[in-house]
């Protein structure tokens, strides 16, 4: 049932975003995503308790990973898109692992959580093409992430 709901949302999004399939619109969505991540970063910095800081970062990263999983499960996506999404997912998975000291990563120290929040945002704010995937796939991902966040 849940999967059907998600698919329905995605279908609606597909229809809704058809006129927006322009590069500059994907840039606006990317901006919106960065704004969300900046808000998270500033909230993390405002929190004193490192446990709460870590919990907030964990929650955010989990939601992003979930959104990416949802999109990559779509059968209509090309193989190239799926590989591109996997590449993006790998980056976020690494951040989640490092935050929690998993998969061979040294756990981010309590005193470094603010810097880590900066790092997550700054990694998005690079002068590179966001991903090598179709604009449609990219827009769906960003919309889903924004909706889930």
């Amino acid at each position, binding site marked *: 049932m849940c999967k059907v709901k998600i698919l329905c949302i995605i279908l609606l999004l597909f229809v809704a975003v058809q006129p927006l399939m322009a590069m500059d619109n994907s*840039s606006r969505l990317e901006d919106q995503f960065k704004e969300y991540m*900046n808000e998270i970063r500033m909230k993390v910095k405002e929190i004193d308790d490192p446990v709460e800081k870590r919990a907030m970062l964990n929650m955010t990263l989990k939601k992003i990973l979930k959104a990416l999983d949802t999109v990559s499960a779509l059968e209509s996506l090309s193989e190239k898109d799926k590989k591109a999404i996997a590449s993006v997912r790998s980056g976020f998975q690494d951040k989640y692992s490092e935050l929690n000291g998993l998969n061979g990563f040294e756990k981010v120290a309590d005193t470094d959580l603010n810097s880590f929040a900066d790092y997550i945002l700054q990694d998005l704010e690079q002068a590179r093409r966001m991903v090598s995937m179709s604009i449609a796939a990219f827009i769906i991902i960003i919309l889903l992430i924004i909706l889930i966040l």
Partner: protein
Amino acid sequence: MTVEKKRFLFSCTRAKPFVFAAPAAAVILFSFLFLFSCETQSALKAGTPSTQGRTRYSIIYVINGEGSNLYHDEEGRPLFADVQMLDQAKEIAREASETEVFIFYLKPAGLHQARVKLYYYRNPISKKSVMRYTLHSGRSEEISSWLEFYKKHSLRFQEPGVNSRWRSFFFYFGHELQEGKNPGSQGPMHLFTTDDLADALSCLSADFGVDEYGFDLVIVSACYSGTPGIIGRIIPYARYIIASPEPLHLSHISTEPFKNVGEIEKKGTFQFVMGAARYAFERLTHMTNTAVTVAVYDSARVIPYIATVEALCMPGKRGNYGGMPPEKIDQSACGPGEEGKNFTGATIEASGVPEYYDCAENPGFREDVMEKGVTVFYRPPLFGRERGKTEHSGWECIRFNDASN
């Protein structure tokens, strides 16, 4: 494919009157300053005394506003990279003495359109002209329009016989460059590609009529600009290149040191360029926690092996990569373009997801040969898999995880 020239504006810069004891003298002085600082179309055309300044430096900025340019400072304030760089370019124009500054600012205006704004400033004599036009599709007419604008205004072309004392700089700011040529109507337009960059440098260098490199320095402030493919395309036209082999934060490579560009005469070109690179590196390391890699390429020392490192990085691929010798392109590309025709340059045919890696990780990489003439300022990211990495070769290779596999 047409370029519509919407309007050609010349703004008038009013000089500040100085305060003198005698009011009459102030009035006379004010009138004098006003007359000679006010820019008009006729002044530019007629070669009035305003064109006889001692300008010796010509800086060209290309600012590509394509894509998401939003980033945030430490306090969470939003900043836009393209606007920041435009402001900095204007600041350099105001403060650098004996310098003329051209700014080509591109902004998308739909799927197959772009708004282009061209600015020209001259210092010490305050002069500014602005041209705006809309680019509908294709690339060639755009470049030729820029060249036309440059040649029309640059003192370099208005003071015959003084070419030898000119120093030229070309700075590009934008996102990772699209390789090869633009797909035009076949796909989303990229406002500036590696071919556009190479063509602009080539055409300008040819017009300068100098024996060696047309530019003392080219800065390519974009992610992955330090690949053998990109360096290979532009190296014939630049004595030195500053680029970022790895991802680069949108706060970009600063050109702040060019406020004092005249220091190049005391320090020498190499030391000045190294100082500018070091300044950019230190600023970025202070501002960000991600990796910072600022590399300086000394063309004379890199050219002998650039084809080898290109071949190593992209074996069997056509295009910018794959051992294409760094020779100058056909100068016919500098003229007005034909309908549907792009500049020269091959298109990367590769498919799949690009993956970048330090060329030093390639077993065929030879440090003793392929790091000659490359100075790298490197700081690893404070987090992530590469946090323990201590150095970078200065060359970023690319491989494609082919989607069909």
